[in-house]
């Protein structure tokens, strides 16, 4: 679940909410789903809060290999 993308997690959360709102699953499954949903929501919020912006350049090297470099051109004055 940790490696899940934000989009996947949000989608899964959405599905769980839908399932629970339909209310046609057994109670113990409901509680499990609820716990899962809460964990997903928490994970989503955490992902929102973490600031891990990574900007890099990807180019092809002389021998056709992948070359990655830091991006220097971002001089934003905002």
């Amino acid at each position, binding site marked *: 679940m940790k490696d899940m*993308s*934000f*989009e996947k997690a*949000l989608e899964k*959360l*959405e599905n*769980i*909410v839908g399932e*629970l*709102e339909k*209310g046609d699953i057994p*109670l113990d499954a*409901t*509680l499990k789903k*609820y716990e899962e*949903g*809460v964990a997903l*929501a928490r994970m*989503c*919020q955490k*992902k*929102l809060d*973490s*600031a*891990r*912006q*990574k*900007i*890099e*350049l*990807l*180019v*092809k090297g002389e021998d056709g290999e*992948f070359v*990655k470099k830091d*991006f220097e*051109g*971002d*001089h*934003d004055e*905002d």
Partner: protein
Amino acid sequence: MAGGSNAHIYTVTELTRDVRLVLEDAFTGIWVEGEISNLRLPVSGHAYFTLKDENSMLKCVLFKSAGSRLKFALEDGMRVSCFGRVSVYDKQGQYQLYADIIELQGKGALYAAFEQLKERLRKEGLFDEARKKPVPFLPVRLGVITSGTGAAVRDILKVARRRFTNIEITISPVKVQGDDAKHEIAQAIELMNEYNRYLANTGSKEHPIEVIIAGRGGGSMEDLWAFNEEIVARAIFASEIPVISAVGHEIDYTISDFTADHRAATPSAAAELVIPEKDELRGRIDGYTDRLGAAVSSRLDLLGTRLKNLSDSYVMRAPVNAVLQLEQQVDDLARRARVGITHHVELQKSGFAMLAGKLKALGPLSVLNRGYSITFQDGRVVRDTEGLRPGDRLLTRFARDEVSSRVEEVRGKNERHVI
């Protein structure tokens, strides 16, 4: 012979060559305009056609080398301006125009090229909606193909920073105008796809590029031309990674816009498409959390109600009922038992009363009550006349009182009846 013996007699070849020289001298680097007809495009790659107007026709040739620079394909009926030189095709003694540049009149060459390519690619299915891939919402890793120094890349990064910081952005810088632009853009799209395959094949923990924004800021139609090139369209079409075309908004659409999985009017708009607003997301998550809680508590409420309904139902109450019934039965039995006992007691009681009555009736007082009396002599009951003598004192007892008397005469058994 007319004309004199001094007159030079040309061979056909000589005359043809001289005419060619005259024509080439006089008509080099000229523009001529007309309508294309009788167009022939043999496999050699050269193009042969006739330029005509209302009254005249001019044979024309466009050699392959010059033709490859054309942005559009020649068609019969096109009104064009041709730049070139007039010369003679010796073998047929035919003068003709050797065109180097052909420009479309009216709509313009670029426009014609655009329309032609669009039509061709559309027919081939490159714009089919069914082939378009969905654009991921909030990708972990975003690919950007644009100039490394242009406004587009700055705009995209600005949007990313403002909206959602937790995103990886991989930029492949390319030229976005000039002759090399189309190749660089196409290669960068291929590069990002290759890179994803490389990540997958090596089992890398790096996130793959989930979506590509390819574009540039606004410019003239010529500036944007790379995004109308077939090679770019084909690279976009072949890309396994969804591509958002984001070319500045001065013209309505580029070929890239039609081919891409999604089109945005500007690079900023493209970034906003895949990078949603953080606050909006937070609100959505909160909303889901609320709904989760509400769903579960309403579920519990519902279950509570059901449980209550069930426990109230006849079936669930049956054991209690049975007990109640048994209790009732017990009560009933007890009541009956009581009644029985009471009855019995009553019976007994009335039995006693009867016996008592009998006893009473049998008792001497009762006999007296019925009118009999008892006679005592000296405290002993007088049962017969034996032992009695005249002058004996007798006490006679009635029901309520008594009387004392004296015996006057004693009679035998037989005389007693007479009394």
